[in-house]
């Protein structure tokens, strides 16, 4: 009697194949982004929690003035645009920043698509546009932070009787201290992600330009930094809604 082993039905989890059909690096990027999503969710949920534990402004929308007694209406705070100082243009600058980030996400997909075609020149072109978009966004944010910190006259009366203009971590002219704290923390944490994304993009752009990816035979590194870059855009979509619109 021969001992022929009856082949058992093998599952994809029995080894030898890649059940998720992606490389190790790409899978780990996905799981890192998932954990990062939890971090950002924690921050935004904290924003909601702190906001609703402060009194909100009850009154006519057009009569709104800054006070530390209630949470500010975001569009009244973010209403400044460079070169139009003193003109009340609510949310215009944030809208521009949103479009810059979405467009840089688009150029990133185009870079990934060019990578599938092994078109080095196209990958270089689109990655460069992506990097420029990232730098433009960071520059906008630098201006926004500067404006937020320095504030606008005449300032607001603080609980201790002094008049304060601008914002720091202890007090601000727009509303309760927690408002500026959350602004610095959430947009700062997102801005740091954009900053590190730009750095990663520059490193990968350098490798693409020197032909490293072409010799390797695939452009998967572009896809991996692409995932990170889209995630940064994704987070901004949520920050835009929960911090600026609502």
């Amino acid at each position: 009697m021969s001992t022929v082993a009856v082949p058992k039905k093998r599952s994809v989890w029995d080894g030898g194949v890649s059940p998720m059909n992606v490389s190790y690096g790409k899978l780990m990027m996905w799981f890192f982004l998932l954990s990062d999503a939890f971090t950002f969710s924690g921050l935004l949920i904290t924003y909601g929690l702190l906001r609703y534990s402060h009194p909100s402004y009850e009154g006519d929308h057009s009569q709104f003035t800054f006070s530390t007694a209630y949470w500010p209406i975001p569009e009244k705070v973010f209403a400044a645009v460079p070169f139009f100082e003193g003109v009340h243009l609510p949310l215009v600058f944030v809208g521009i920043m949103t479009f810059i980030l979405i467009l840089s996400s688009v150029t990133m997909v185009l870079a990934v698509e060019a990578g599938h075609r092994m078109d080095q020149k196209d990958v270089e072109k689109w990655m460069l546009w992506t990097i420029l978009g990232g730098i433009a966004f960071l520059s906008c944010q630098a201006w926004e932070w500067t404006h937020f910190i320095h504030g606008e006259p005449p300032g607001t009366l603080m609980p201790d009787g002094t008049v304060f203009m601008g914002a720091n971590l202890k007090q601000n002219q727009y509303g309760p201290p927690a408002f500026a704290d959350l602004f610095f923390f959430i947009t700062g944490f997102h801005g740091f992600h954009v900053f590190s994304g730009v750095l990663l993009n520059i490193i990968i752009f350098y490798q693409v330009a020197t032909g490293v990816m072409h010799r390797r035979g695939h452009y998967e590194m572009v896809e991996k930094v692409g995932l990170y870059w889209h995630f940064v855009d994704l987070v901004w979509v949520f920050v835009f809604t929960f911090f600026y619109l609502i």
Partner: protein
Amino acid sequence: MAHSENLTPEQAHKAAVKRILTVTGILAGVTALEFAMAFTMPAGMGRNMIFVLMTFVKAFYIVAEFMHLRYEVKVLVLSIILPCVFLVWLVVALLLEGAY
């Protein structure tokens, strides 16, 4: 791209770019609409709910198309999407019991 087996490389390239531009149009359109609503609609819970809904529409297109998740294997999609249930749990818990 994986979903273009019967096309020549040139056609596949054109189809991919067209798809990217379509998604770009959707994202830009939804953002523009949000922007318009911020100034035309009175603030309130109803408007906020619409904003949240539109945010999830944008999030879907970014994750599904730009991050290519809808073309991945099902088990990968689930292992990314299912853990987000914990976030829903946290939000619901805070909404129901956050006032204590």
